[in-house]
Structures are given as structure tokens and as C-alpha cells.
């Protein structure tokens, strides 16, 4: 692994940790174990529509980017991994 991709991996991991932390904050409890592949909307239904919006507001506050209503897409918010992918694309675009 070259130094650039290694740095990227570390950044992605940091982003993943932040996203998982924000999910836990949104749920108001830390006991639920969230993994990068945990399904947020289907399966266990970690989020209902209210919690999804709270999570989005927390992301907007944390990352300083507006998340428009058009992006409220179940593919984007399917798992922490898809959320991180979305954030990376948004942060790159806004950089």
C-alpha cells in the first residue's frame, strides 16, 4: 500500500468511526452495536424517518455540509458504508 492510499484508508476509517458515533448519538444509546454493514433502514430498522432526519442534521452540523432533501435516498442511507461513500463524494465535490 503506498503512502497516499494508506492515508486515505486512515481517513476513511476516521470518517466511518465518526458516522457510527453519530448514529449512536442519534439513537441515544451506545449499547446497539453498529457495524459498517449494519442496515439502517431495512432489516433491524435502526432508523425510522424521524431518526433518519436527526442523523442527517447531526451530519450537517459535524461536516458542515447541507444535505438536501433530494439526497434522502434509501440507497445512500442503507448502511454506514454507503453513508461514508456519499460523504466522501460530497466532501470531495465541496473541497
Amino acid at each position, binding site marked *: 500500500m503506498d503512502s497516499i492510499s494508506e492515508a486515505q484508508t486512515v481517513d476513511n476509517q476516521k470518517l466511518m468511526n465518526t458516522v457510527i458515533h453519530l448514529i449512536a448519538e442519534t*439513537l*441515544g*444509546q451506545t449499547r446497539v452495536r453498529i457495524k459498517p454493514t449494519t442496515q439502517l433502514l431495512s432489516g433491524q430498522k435502526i432508523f*425510522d424517518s*424521524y431518526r433518519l*432526519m*436527526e442523523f442527517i*442534521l*447531526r451530519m450537517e452540523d459535524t461536516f458542515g455540509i447541507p444535505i438536501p*432533501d433530494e439526497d434522502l435516498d434509501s440507497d445512500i442511507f442503507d448502511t454506514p458504508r454507503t453513508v461514508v461513500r456519499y460523504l466522501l463524494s460530497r466532501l470531495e465535490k465541496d473541497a
Partner: protein
Amino acid sequence: MHDLTASLLNINEAALTIEVLDKLAGLSDQGWQIQLILVDNGSRADQVQSLLDWVFGNKGRFSEVLFITATKNLGCTGGRNAAFKLAMSDRILVLDNDIVLPEDSVWLDRLWSIMEADQQVAIAAPMLVFHNRQDIVQGAGIALTKTGRVGFLDRGKLAADVSPKPIEVTAAPTACWLMRREAQHTVGLFSEEYYPVQYEDIDLCIRLKLAGWKILCDRSVRIKHIENVTTRNLRDYSYVRLTVRRGMRFKEKWADVLPKIATITEDQIYWEPIPRPKI
């Protein structure tokens, strides 16, 4: 004969507001001495004019009418706080303009009676039903989960299946409150941190409860409520984002208290959409 102060807000919904005002004037005709405090939260000129015309035509039916025309939206927080500051009676009737009051005063007599029967009651509220489906409960008071989620009790149930007995609840929406002014004085005003609206009523109820007061929902009293009229005129805010944002503030503020006052779990929150026509 009873004295009370009635507080009503308007924002670009003069027709609905006047329907409520007509019912309040009708109460005056039935012997109630009402100080009316009407606050317009920056409506269009034609809307204000409609209210002004109504006030001039009906002011003699009240012990006093105070019509405040704000040049900007004071919010439900600021508008109702203005009424709290100006209220002269020991009982304050706090109303939304999207409730449909009955013609007679039986509903108010009942709320008055349960407040008189227990000096610790700060708020007596009715059971709200959908205005177009009055057989279905919109909410018989509010309960909270330990994470601060709001549940409208008995929501979606058939009203006929709900016991008519009054129950103590954690909170009630300000759609219709009969409030003891002494209790309001002990906890102060609606907190402006919830400007313009959402969660300010629950916040005030928690402060009342922590001060030892009771909030009652008299489920024998059914009042029709259209719901979401106040919030549909919040031009500068996305309703959903505003609600969740104020909910986050509420949750953070009361994080230590919520586990102690929670009476429902997340599974008990019923928020399925119930179809209703546009008004």
C-alpha cells in the same frame, strides 16, 4: 360565572381563527367572562384587516380584548408568552386556531371542574380527535420515551374504545389547555430556545411536573383538531427539519430527566399516517 383569559394566535389563517373567535364569543354569551388576547404573528395585511373587523364587531362580547399585531413572527413561544404576561384571570385558556370548538360550553365546564377538584392540576386538556374523523383519537395527552421520543397517547384508536376517565399525563399539546395561572407563574414562560414552535409545550409541562404540578387529560372531553395548521405557515423553515432540530435540543436539555419520567417505550409510539383532507 367564571373568569378566564383566552389566548389565541394567528398567522395567515384568519378564517380559521375567526371560527374559534366566534365560539369564544359564544361562551361569553353563556356567562363566561373572557379576556381575549389575540396575537397576530405578522400575517398579510388583508388577514390582519379581517381580524380587526371581527374584533371591532365583537369586542363588546368580552370583558377585554387585546389584539396584538406583531410585524414579525413572534412564534408560538413569543406569541403565547405575550398572552401570559398580559393575562388577568386565574385561568388561561390556551388555544390553537385549528381546533373546532363545540357550540356549547360543556367541554369547558368539565375541564374547569377537574381543575377545581384538585389544586395541584396545572393544566387540564381534552382528548383531541381528528376533525374529519372524530371517531379516531389524535392524542389523549403526551408521553415520552427515555430517549425523548414523543408519543401521542391512544393515537389512532377508536375514541369509543378509550376510557373516558381523566388521566395524568406527562404533557399535552397546546392545541387546547386550560391552565392555572399560578402554576405558570411558578415555572415562567415558554422557553424561546424552541422558537418559533415545537417542543415548547412539552418543555413547559416537564417544568411544571418537576415543580410538583399535574397535567391531566380529560378523555371524556373530545375536541376536534385539524393539526399542522400552525406549522404550515412557517415559510422560513422546513417543518420536518424544524421539528427534529427542536427535538434534538429538547432531548439534550432533558437527557438526565427523561429516563426518570419516561412512561412509554419506542414500540408504543404510533405514528402511522392517518389520511385527512387538505383544509
